[in-house]
């Protein structure tokens, strides 16, 4: 019980400190009062520390089974393994908001500590904006959805986690994706601060690049982990269902992908300043919109466990963010752009601009599909779109992005010449050969997508070969560039995996008696028999199958304590070319069993591509600043005393 009081107290103290930091920082920035800027920043650090104290207290309450707290009762029980009990911290609405606030506090602190070079006013306004966001979250946690609410009677045991969340994926997917969401606030705060302070040069981009990249990487990993989890746990044979929760995680990722490319145009050429501000602001607004959509339940979603009464608060917060960002942009728009934004299409900057427009097109498609039930519901009849809409509308745009990935890295700044076409020959050849080969097996758009992705890989190989010929040390010295190309390879490998599994998937439903076999896409499986196991909190019905020398055990778990809620455990056998994916649909009284068997080509490429992507980001950025500093030092002429 004492933990509840301490936690609620820490949250309240955080609200006061955060609000104080926000008000003082805006005032100090306006009056250019250095002393108050420092105090405002320290108040932010203290508010972040209060958030950390609250988070530690909630974790202690979970691990010590303090069932006087409603949150602990609702998201853990004595039978759940300790790792999952600890993960219950972010397994529910209130805890996940606290986790988000914690990451915002930690990253906000890191960004402010390292931002001294940006100047007092930018720093003050950034502190004010970050503190405002932090205060909003802490207020919601302290007043509307507190994880420290106490029960009048302490029960002997808790209700436990939702069965879908009782999985190893729970330990890693939610924290990564929530941290990604929180990280988008940092570039947003510094972009708005730079606009208010009138510092529209690229300094804010250089400072926040690492945080934008961190947000993008976390979101990339979060999306892929979510796909992996859905594929391995939910048992419907796919990994992406265009559910609103997936869509709202995808949209900020797309906006930040666009920003990470267009920001290079500003850094190198001083162009697209307004555009970059707009993209960073858009990414954060999409995060807030997504949070409202997911947490309010205004749109039908499979993630119903996240719904609560905090929706209206987030709608209000979204409105404030839109008005604030719109006002800040309107204040400075036109002032920031000092040079005309002309860019020939066949140039690096032209390719970046086109890529940005295409990605915004995908965002528009996904956004309309996601909010259609909300908008159409307000106008009369609620309408819902499903996967074919997204595939038809976003698919061709994404294929165009793949084409751009095959061409863009080889285009020079300013204007492309004959040398560019010569450099492109390997990419064009790779794309043509792969596309032609896959068209013969009737993969249609899939053939074109995979062909273009192969062209993109050839483009990166060409760039690596060029660098290796000129000077292999270039790969290390310009690691940011070549790391980004490796991340490109990761995205392309993911694209190949998605295209192959979408266009090459084969499935079959069947009922088998023990000893009977079935063949799907050339893979033969034999049903050998079934068994029933009684475990601590559920009953497991297992149907054993043989696939070559491998034993597969698809099963169904029934949780009696949760009203007979059933969960499917799929069995997957991975071969180099395809996954054999077996779902147990049901066991019959005559001993037969009904199955759905799917053969999904190249799904492992999606997970492998994710690893390559993260590797590219890490290798491209570890020690990058130190290397830049070293090069700068080397260039400074040594002046001898006279």
């Amino acid at each position, binding site marked *: 019980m004492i933990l509840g009081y301490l936690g609620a107290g820490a949250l309240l103290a955080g609200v006061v400190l955060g609000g104080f930091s926000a008000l003082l920082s805006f005032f100090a920035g306006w009056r250019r009062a250095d002393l108050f800027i420092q105090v405002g920043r320290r108040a932010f650090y203290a508010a972040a520390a*209060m958030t950390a104290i609250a988070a530690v207290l909630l974790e202690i309450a979970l691990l010590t089974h303090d069932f006087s707290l409603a949150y602990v009762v609702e998201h853990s029980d004595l039978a759940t393994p300790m790792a999952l009990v600890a993960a219950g911290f972010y397994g529910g609405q209130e805890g996940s908001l606290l986790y988000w606030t914690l990451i915002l506090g930690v990253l906000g602190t890191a960004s402010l500590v390292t931002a001294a070079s940006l100047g007092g006013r930018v720093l003050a306004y950034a502190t004010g904006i970050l503190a405002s966001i932090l205060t909003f979250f802490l207020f919601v946690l302290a007043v509307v959805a507190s994880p420290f609410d106490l029960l009048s009677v302490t029960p002997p045991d808790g209700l436990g986690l939702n069965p879908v969340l009782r999985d190893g994926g729970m330990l890693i997917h939610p924290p990564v994706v929530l941290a990604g969401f929180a990280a988008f606030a940092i570039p947003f705060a510094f972009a708005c601060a730079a606009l208010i302070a009138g510092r529209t040069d690229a300094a804010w981009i250089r400072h926040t690049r690492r945080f934008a990249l961190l947000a993008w990487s976390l979101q990339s990993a979060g999306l892929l982990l979510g796909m992996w989890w859905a594929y391995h746990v939910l048992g419907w044979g796919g990994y992406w269902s265009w559910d609103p929760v997936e869509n709202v995680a995808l949209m900020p990722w797309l906006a930040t992908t666009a920003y990470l490319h267009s920001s290079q145009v500003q850094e190198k050429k001083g162009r697209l300043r307004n555009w970059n501000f707009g993209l960073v602001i858009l990414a954060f607004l999409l995060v807030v919109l997504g949070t409202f959509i997911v947490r309010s339940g205004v749109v039908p979603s499979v993630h119903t466990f996240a719904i609560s009464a905090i929706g209206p608060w987030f709608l209000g917060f979204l409105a404030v963010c839109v008005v604030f960002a719109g006002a800040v942009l309107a204040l400075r728009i036109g002032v920031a752009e000092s040079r005309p934004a002309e860019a020939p299409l066949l140039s690096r900057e032209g390719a970046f601009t086109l890529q940005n427009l295409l990605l915004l097109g995908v965002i528009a498609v996904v956004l309309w599909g996601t909010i259609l039930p909300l908008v159409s519901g307000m106008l009369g009849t609620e309408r819902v779109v499903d996967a074919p809409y997204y595939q038809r509308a976003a698919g061709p745009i994404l294929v165009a992005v793949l084409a751009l990935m095959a061409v863009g890295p080889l285009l020079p700044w300013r204007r492309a010449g004959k040398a560019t076409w010569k450099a492109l020959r390997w990419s064009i050849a790779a794309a043509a050969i792969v596309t032609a080969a896959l068209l013969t097996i009737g993969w249609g758009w899939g053939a074109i997508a995979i062909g273009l992705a192969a062209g993109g890989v050839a483009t990166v190989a060409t760039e690596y070969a060029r660098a290796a010929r000129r000077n292999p040390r270039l790969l290390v010295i310009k690691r940011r560039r070549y790391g980004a190309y490796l991340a490109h390879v990761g995205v392309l490998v993911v694209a190949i995996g998605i295209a192959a599994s979408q266009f090459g998937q084969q499935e079959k439903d069947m009922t088998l008696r023990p000893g009977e076999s079935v063949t799907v896409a050339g893979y033969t499986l034999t049903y050998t028999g079934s068994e029933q196991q009684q475990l601590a909190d559920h009953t497991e019905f297992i149907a054993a199958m043989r696939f070559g020398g491998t034993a597969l055990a698809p099963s169904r778990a029934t949780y009696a304590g949760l009203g007979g809620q059933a969960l499917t455990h799929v069995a997957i056998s991975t071969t180099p070319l395809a996954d054999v994916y077996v779902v147990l649909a049901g066991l019959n009284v005559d001993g037969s069993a009904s199955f759905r068997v799917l053969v999904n080509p190249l799904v492992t490429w999606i997970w492998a591509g994710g690893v390559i992507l993260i590797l590219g980001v890490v290798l491209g950025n570890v020690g990058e600043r130190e290397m830049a500093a070293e090069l700068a030092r080397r260039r400074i002429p040594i002046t001898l005393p006279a």
Partner: protein
Amino acid sequence: MAIIVATLLLFLAGPFVLWPLLKTPEEPIPAASRRTSS
């Protein structure tokens, strides 16, 4: 109870937050001594 805890935490955080205002300002170097040193 939570308000008492919050007040206590704010009291504890006070010196850290207000440190730039609390610390003794550096004494200005007298003009005469500056002239002497140069």
